[in-house]
């Protein structure tokens, strides 16, 4: 069942590839604007890189979040998903997993390339990828709660950012912190462990919250 819902959402995403590409290009452009605006001061660039890349990843994932349930609401398939004989949080988990694969994994893969513009050393690029790999599931999971709460509201896109971005702060601090630690030669492990713990907590709680929010939104 989980397999089917992931497969369904991946197929749908593939048939609308332009949406995925726009998220990736937004990420690339936002990150690239900083070196262009600041100029070739390697020391400064290196120290702002972790924060810039992580913030750009947060903003890029905002773009795809309001599509998470809105399309399904419009054609009525979301009602049908609510009426399937499985616990709703499993359906939500499947959709979130598909969202992560479609909207976050491309960012993780492209991050080391855009990181090169900041003169980040190779080892740190690896830490950047690891921190994004651990941290981006948090973005999809917590984002799904916001997407469900703002479902069907006018101006939901802005509202979702106001709701969700503050909740991303722990992920931002530990994620960027890990990369920063690696740049100054300290161990990134404590940051990554905390980020992992935050990911697990959001994995446990957000599918339930999203399921409850969906039921309310559809009443």
């Amino acid at each position, binding site marked *: 069942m989980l397999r089917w819902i992931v497969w*369904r959402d991946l197929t749908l995403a593939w048939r609308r590839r332009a949406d995925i590409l726009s998220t990736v290009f937004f990420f690339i452009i936002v990150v690239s604007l900083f070196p262009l605006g600041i100029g070739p001061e390697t020391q400064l660039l290196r120290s702002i890189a972790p924060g810039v890349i992580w913030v750009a990843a947060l903003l890029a994932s905002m773009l795809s979040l309001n599509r998470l349930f809105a399309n399904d609401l419009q054609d009525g398939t979301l009602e049908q998903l609510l*009426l399937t004989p499985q616990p709703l949080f499993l359906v939500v988990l499947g959709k979130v997993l598909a969202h992560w694969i479609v909207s976050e994994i491309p960012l993780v893969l492209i991050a080391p390339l855009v990181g090169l513009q900041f003169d980040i050393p190779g080892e740190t690029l690896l830490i950047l990828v690891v921190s994004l790999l651990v941290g981006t599931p948090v973005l999809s999971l917590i984002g799904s709660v916001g997407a469900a709460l703002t479902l069907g509201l006018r101006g939901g896109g802005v509202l979702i950012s106001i709701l969700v971005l503050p909740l991303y702060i722990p992920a931002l601090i530990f994620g960027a912190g890990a990369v920063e630690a690696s740049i100054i030669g300290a161990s990134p492990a404590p940051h990554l462990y905390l980020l992992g713990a935050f990911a697990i907590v959001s994995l446990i709680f957000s599918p339930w919250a999203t399921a409850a929010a969906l039921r309310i939104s559809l009443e």
Partner: protein
Amino acid sequence: MVAPTLLEVKQLGCVRGDRRLFSGLDLSLAAGTYLQVTGPNGSGKTSLLRILCGLLAPAEGEINWQGENIRSLAEDYFTSVTYLGHRHNVKDELSAIENLRISNALNGIVISKERAREVLTRIGLAGRESLPARLLSEGQRRRVALARLLTSGTKLWLLDEVLTSLDKGAVALIRSLIEEHLAGGGIAIVATHQDLSVAAGSSQRLELAT
């Protein structure tokens, strides 16, 4: 022989916003019953169907399926119900076959491509099974959604304005599908303005007033 009561509705009331749509509604439906819900626009037909399938919580009253409250049955209840709303429930990017197979799989029924093709032929979509649904006409997309009735195997059908944009042939097809379903011991609750004139062993009519 008296057929056992499957669906029992007691003192059901529905409030939307600050308007009371209906209250004190009692229904008792046995296997093989056809119930047509009529009433002017805004009288609560859709709300009633959404309450009966569990999407909407009633303001008051209770609904029992085979003697058990549907709130406590939760997901188990959904294995007995197929609800088709007035929206199409069809994904535009997917073909008719994919739509049918996925919506069935999500309900725990895995059907092969061949079986899906058979069903779509019966519903009148032969030759168009592999087209993306956005290329189909309104009526054809409605048929894709209705194809699920043939595979679901559920006891209770809740159909909300499903006849919109269907041609005469399709309406006749739906009538025969419902008659088959009733003969097999199912229940069909249909909200519609058109008279479907279904031949049923037991037929009821519910008129909602504004």
